[in-house]
């Protein structure tokens, strides 16, 4: 038997590796969206922000040679996208969902326009931490070679969970998201809080994009995103606006997404395409199972236009 052949163990291992690899952008986008939605606003434009972030990060990394500068530049670009969304939404009779869709198309188109010259050159990648060196199997080593952004995302989800309860900005965010009137009565300006929350959400979504172009798949082209920015919005609802649940939901989503490729890698030749749809089927199934026609969505921020 071949020393490096681990047989069917490859499937769970591939799922684990896939979960971590695929989930990272979901983690950032969904945490960003969770912040925005907790403030009572939905930003559907995160798909555009994500792709624009991917382009910015790649371009800046190519030009400066530093992937981290690329990530920072992406965050700045994402924040600008969020600010534009937030700024437009503060006008009366403007619908945040419609603006989000417009911003999504704008982000996609603008990224493709500015990103043309960067399809060819190659950018330095973001570093990863090899946690698998104890094993002699290259598969294990590869699976446990985990990108730094994943850890940052994990830490961020814990931090946000804590911050929503224990910090002034966290409580203010929840107040604004739950009741615009109560916020006004407290002398908080809801529009400003939402503006900042949307900007922060945009900058996190752009980090998700930076991960796509600078780590996995690690190149810039027009097909870089497969709808992560849109799915993340569904993930946030699925996670009931809880940052730790967002992290777990992203992992689950990533893990089921890795099912198809993992089966393919162990030699299943037929029907594995069906498993590419697994994350979406799973999301649908869980959303249906946890919803009810008789009661309102629990945990939903009261001022969110979804629940109005």
């Amino acid at each position, binding site marked *: 038997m071949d020393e490096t052949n681990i047989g069917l163990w490859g499937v769970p291992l591939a799922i684990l590796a896939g979960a971590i690899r695929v989930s990272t952008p979901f983690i950032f986008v969904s945490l960003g969206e969770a912040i925005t939605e907790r403030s009572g606003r939905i930003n559907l434009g995160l798909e555009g922000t994500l792709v624009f972030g991917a382009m910015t990060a790649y371009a800046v990394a190519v030009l400066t040679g530093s992937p981290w500068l690329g990530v920072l530049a992406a965050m700045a670009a994402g924040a600008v996208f969020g600010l534009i969304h937030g700024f437009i939404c503060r006008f009366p009779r403007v619908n945040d969902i419609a603006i989000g869709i417009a911003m999504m198309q704008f982000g996609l188109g603008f990224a493709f326009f500015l990103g043309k010259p960067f399809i060819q050159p190659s950018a330095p990648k973001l570093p990863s931490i090899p946690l698998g060196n104890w094993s002699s199997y290259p598969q294990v080593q590869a699976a446990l070679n985990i990108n730094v952004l994943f850890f940052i995302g994990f830490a961020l989800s814990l931090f946000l969970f804590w911050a929503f*309860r*224990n*910090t*002034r*900005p966290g*409580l*203010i965010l*929840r*107040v604004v998201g*739950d*009741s615009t*009137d*109560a916020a006004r*009565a*407290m*002398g908080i300006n809801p529009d400003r809080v939402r503006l900042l929350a949307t900007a922060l959400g945009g900058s996190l979504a752009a980090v998700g994009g930076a991960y796509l172009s600078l780590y996995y798949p690690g190149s810039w082209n027009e097909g870089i995103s497969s709808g992560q920015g849109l799915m993340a919005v569904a993930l946030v609802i699925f996670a009931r606006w809880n940052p730790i649940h967002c992290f777990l939901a992203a992992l689950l989503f990533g893990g089921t997404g890795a099912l198809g490729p993992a089966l393919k890698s162990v030699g299943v030749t037929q029907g594995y395409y069906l498993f590419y749809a697994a994350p979406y089927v799973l999301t649908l199934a869980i959303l249906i199972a946890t919803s*009810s026609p*008789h*009661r*309102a969505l629990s*945990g939903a*921020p*009261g001022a969110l236009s979804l629940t109005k």
Partner: protein
Amino acid sequence: MSIVRDTPLPERGRAASIETLGMTMRFGAFTALDDVSISVPAGSFHALLGENGAGKSTLVKCIMGFYHATSGSLSVDGREVAIASPRDAATHRLGMVYQHFTLVPSLTGAENLVISRAEVPAVINWAKERRELAEFMERMPFRIPLDRPVSELAAGEKQKLEIVKQLYLGRSFLILDEPTSVLTPAEADEMLGLVRGMTESGGLTVLMISHKFHEITKFADDVSILRRGKLVGTGKVGDLSTADMAAMMIGNVKLAELDSRAPVRESAETVLRLSNVRAPDRSGLKTIEIDDLSVHEGEIVGIAGISGNGQKEFAEILSGQRPLSAGNIEVNGSSYGATRAQTRANNVRFIPEEPLQNACAPRMTLSENLSFRTFDLKADGRDALWLSKAGMKERATALISDFKVKTASSSSPIAALSGGNVQRAVLARELTGDVDLLIVSNPCFGLDFSAVAEIRARIMKARNAGTAVLLLSEDLDELLEMSDRIIVISEGRLVYETPARGADIGVIGAHMAGHH
């Protein structure tokens, strides 16, 4: 002592006094407040009376800095102050408890209190805050659980928490805007008694907006009465009778009088019967259980209860908006599922609460809204395919004059009408033609005296004509005035029944509060 709050607590004898001088507020050509001067001395309990639109809320909004008065001035503790925003009002220790709760539902009581402070540390040390809150609550007459989300608290607890919040923020002058509208009589008495105690000890001054004369006579020292933006009377509560106050409040308007109540016939037939009805409530966690209820022709059955005890769900069950999990509903002896055909065959009519949202299409015209029951019928009762615009308009014009709906035209959108006129329009639609069963929910909420009198008279008239009426209301006075029988709903069950005549309010209140 490190002060994290603005000021720790109103101290004994430190209540603020306020005085308005010639306060006037104009919105364009409309004068909402006309030269109003009132004085509220420190440590007094002052009531502010007036109909809807009389200028009460304009006055308190001017005091609190939401509006900037066109002319006139405000003094606090004898010194003239300029209040440009609620924040300025707070620095002068003025606070307000709104009619609608301003607590954030998903936050706990403790979180609500802490976040409402002007200075909140960036990272909240909950151990320390909890200790300080416990200490603060020791000095409060109210007992409220602070660790539960506010959405889980009863209305009375929320109202107390609103007041506690103002005191926590160091306010020593409080405006209470109809503070008891969602409380049981017992809760209201307890809460106002405690507040009264605080004013007597000199720690607090209160200006209370109220519609309830018995509260004013029981708890207030002085009263000021507004009508159409003008101060029409002020004085010691002891010097004025309820009739004096009412007369000043409404002026010389003739109120519609209730028909005298025709006796319920012995042989009155049962129109509505519910047996063993079960349905999930809004949260899906509890069930609504109506074991047995019947309403006979020519009687009004009143359902009393504190808001949120299943009245909404009960009304939804009857209107077909909430599916039953068990049991059955009969109207006129046959099973009833609230379909349009059954509603029409049995002459069932509805007046839901907040009629603009629940019984109207706000942007459609008044004339269209008035034809919702009949637009798809031809004159001979068969199904109509084409609408008869002219017929609808003609009918609408007749109903508008008949029910005294004030509107610019029958083709204005119904949302442009005032609350009382929307309610009149819905009544016009629902009470026209034969009505066997009328289901009414909070019909007079937020309406002024003349609209209330008119609407009650219409319902009583329908009853005397033989309609079976089920009246769900959170206003116990209304139920006592209107009903033949009163049934108390508590936590989704009917727990107590009494004839309205000679009913004991104390007993009803105790059942409403869940003591049964």
